[in-house]
């Protein structure tokens, strides 16, 4: 199907951000009528490459050729004029204006300078029908679900019939299975029409279903471009990580080694701990040296339980004891003083302060524990920051780098570092590996196990069953805001899924 003619070739693209070499001499090509998967971990340079192609960022060096002609993409608008259309991961549309406007604005039909609203709405309806979506296009976009908004974004990018290249940047992250299938049907249709499609996703399944070729980036460098058929999955992962899967095996192994130790004394114990409307009374015992997995669907009460343990909310029933002492006052500050730490779920909103440096981010919680008036000397601060940057392997040129410049995985490590700096006894981790790549996941999992081995206790909350199973010594399953069951670490995933679903 794919012709061997390149419609796009990018050569020697280089782009530097303050302190970070985001793209280093990267080559990329796209053929007419192919779906080209762009793969890599977070921070590999995928987004930057797309931003360069769409004119959001200007490259420091390199040549972009469209149909054999060298071009300089000045702006997103210019890239559209050149026939490059993009659908981004986050829906980049305006929620206050109508669906129709969101689709046709910039190319809207008008008569004598007057917008032809009827024609606009008709055009928009037609564009959505192509995706088999039938909605009232005169309504503001904000009235519809995120999935519909995503489809509108795709309809918008398709509506420009001059489009020669379509970039789909994580388009399926907010779509369900049926919507994804629908999207793939559309992608195949466009491919047969001769469009070149660049497809970025974290889902390996989807890449193998749809992509003809795969280009792998790692740390801003090109690894290589492969035919999908000749690249086995395991090899793709290895190329993305730049190492074999042995790291993950090592995690499982170290868990077994710690297994015996984890039967120590009880550190944190909840008896009938509950809060009306949030969590039904829960019994929970956390031992020294133990990783306690907390599994359950979104909204099952996992996060609420973590909040009660850390004192974000005050329970209205039951009691919580730490090393035999009953906790009287529930507040995060009190918990910090007692040696309990919580890494929240949403690292952007609740965790990282992007405009502060890495050092300042690490010191934050420690400073809160010391009180605001006790001064930590610059030397001491640096010492602590350096210690944790090394301990957790945070990749950064210096501790004075702004936190927002770090990749997702490194930001997550930074939050961990902040809480570790307070030297907690109990560490509650709410989705610590969400949205970060496989390599960083393995590192964080290993770190959690190491911490447990050093005499700390961890509560590990995750939606990914596989990682809960891999590192937990015991697993508590939550369902409908109550504790559904408790298993030892060698339970299989089927049992847990059945419990989560309520069949057991």
């Amino acid at each position, binding site marked *: 199907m794919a012709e061997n003619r390149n419609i796009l070739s990018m050569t020697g693209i280089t782009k530097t951000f303050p302190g970070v070499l985001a793209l280093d001499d990267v080559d990329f090509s796209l053929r007419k009528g192919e779906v080209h998967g762009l793969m890599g971990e977070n921070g590999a340079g995928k987004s930057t490459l797309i931003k360069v192609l769409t004119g959001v960022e200007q490259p420091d060096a390199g040549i972009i050729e469209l149909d054999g002609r060298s071009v300089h993409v000045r702006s997103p608008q210019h890239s559209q004029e050149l026939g490059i259309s993009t659908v981004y991961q986050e829906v980049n549309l305006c929620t206050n204006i109508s669906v129709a406007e969101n689709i046709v604005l910039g190319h809207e039909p008008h008569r004598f300078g007057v*917008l032809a609203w009827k024609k606009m709405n008709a055009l928009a309806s037609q564009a959505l029908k192509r995706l088999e979506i039938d909605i009232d296009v005169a309504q503001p976009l904000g009235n519809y679900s995120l999935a519909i908004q995503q489809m509108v974004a795709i309809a918008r990018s398709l509506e420009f019939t001059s489009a020669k290249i379509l970039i789909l940047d994580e388009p399926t992250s907010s779509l369900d299975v049926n919507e994804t299938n629908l999207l793939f049907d559309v992608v195949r249709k466009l491919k047969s029409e001769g469009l070149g499609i660049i497809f970025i996703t974290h889902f390996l399944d989807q890449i193998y279903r749809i992509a003809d070729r795969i280009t792998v980036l790692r740390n801003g460098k090109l690894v290589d471009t492969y035919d999908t058929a000749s690249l086995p999955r395991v090899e793709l992962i290895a190329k993305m990580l730049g190492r074999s899967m042995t790291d993950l095996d090592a995690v499982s192994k170290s868990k077994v080694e710690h297994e015996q130790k984890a039967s120590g004394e009880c550190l944190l114990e909840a008896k009938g701990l509950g809060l009306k409307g949030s969590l039904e009374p829960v019994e929970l015992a956390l031992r020294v040296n133990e990783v306690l997995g907390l599994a359950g669907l979104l909204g099952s009460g996992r996060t609420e339980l973590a909040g009660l343990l850390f004192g974000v909310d005050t329970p209205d029933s039951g009691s919580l004891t730490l090393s035999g002492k009953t906790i009287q006052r529930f507040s995060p500050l009190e918990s910090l003083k007692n040696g309990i730490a919580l890494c929240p779920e949403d690292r952007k909103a609740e965790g990282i302060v992007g405009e502060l440096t890495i050092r300042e981010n690490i010191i934050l919680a420690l400073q809160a524990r010391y009180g605001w008036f006790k001064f930590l000397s610059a030397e001491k601060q640096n010492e602590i920051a350096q210690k944790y940057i090394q301990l957790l392997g945070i990749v950064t040129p210096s501790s004075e780098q702004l936190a927002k410049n770090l990749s997702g995985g490194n930001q997550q490590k930074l939050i961990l570092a902040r809480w570790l700096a307070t030297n907690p006894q109990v560490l509650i981790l709410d989705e610590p590996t969400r949205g970060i790549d496989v390599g960083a996941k393995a590192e964080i999992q290993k770190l959690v196990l190491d911490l447990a081995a050093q005499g700390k206790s961890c509560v590990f909350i995750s939606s990914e069953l596989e990682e809960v199973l891999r590192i937990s010594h015991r697993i508590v399953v939550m369902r409908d805001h109550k504790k559904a069951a408790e298993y030892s670490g060698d339970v299989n995933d089927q049992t847990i899924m059945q419990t989560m679903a309520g069949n057991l």
Partner: protein
Amino acid sequence: MAERTKFFLLRYGPLLTTMTVFVLAYLAGGWLYPAMKNPQVFFNLFINGGYLLLVSIGMTFVILTGGIDLSVGGVIALTTAASAALLKAGVSPFVVMPLMVILGIVFGLTQGCIVHFLKVQPFIATLMGLYFARGMAYIISLESVTIKDSFYKSLALTPIPIPFLDAYVYIPTLVGPIMLIVAIYLTYFTRFGRTIYAIGNNEQSALLMGLPVARTKILVYSFSGLCSALAGIVFSISLLAGYGQFATGTELDAIASVVMGGTSLAGGVGTVIGTLFGVLINQTIVSILQFNGTLSSWWTRIGVGILTLIFIGIQSLFYIRRKHS
């Protein structure tokens, strides 16, 4: 159908509230002071509030993009002072007026460029614009300069009767309503207008949609500058004078009118029609106080202040409801 009604109410609720408040305020005035029932009083709202309507229209555009323009009062003062000085020097009014319009546009354009290219906060950029314009007005003349030009006088003093009603307006009074129609056309029927709304909702998105963000933002400040210059011309005709102290605090009256009209200071939400009613409410309160005759004119500001606060409260309620639905 019920669903549609709900969406309609959520969408146009703030606008309908503003209209209702105006009607109620006017009826209350008519009930307290029967003389207010005279149709001329209604047209006086436009005669006296014409300049405010003009700057509020420009302000609406700026606020819809998520910005603010504090320079409008200064530009009015500068326009009146410059007009008076030029007319006194014997320059033809047919040269003076277009010159003032160009002055306003260039002034706004410069502010727009400072906001967009130098990434200066609109609040700061236009505050500097306000100081600059008012300062320049005093450089031209430290005292009020009377306009003796015969064309200006005839514009100021020739009444135009309103058909079928025992009422009249003046020629400059028509500038506000004409610009209102132009503004409605621009916001609703042009890509420029729709881009304003898109930018106000999410500038980054608008940029990624390939919309002309830079051009639109700069044009919006230029448009506000144009409106201010027109307001200045109207002002100098109705007072037949130019002075650096004219229109003090107008920028805040305009912002209050825009907010009362249902436009969100966060940008992206609001209408020019709403602004018209915001201005009318402002002028109605002024009228009621004039008819009363004993109350301090500062009650206008107190009334507008309270109303603005209430409107902002109503707006957030609608916003919260919309988020939930």
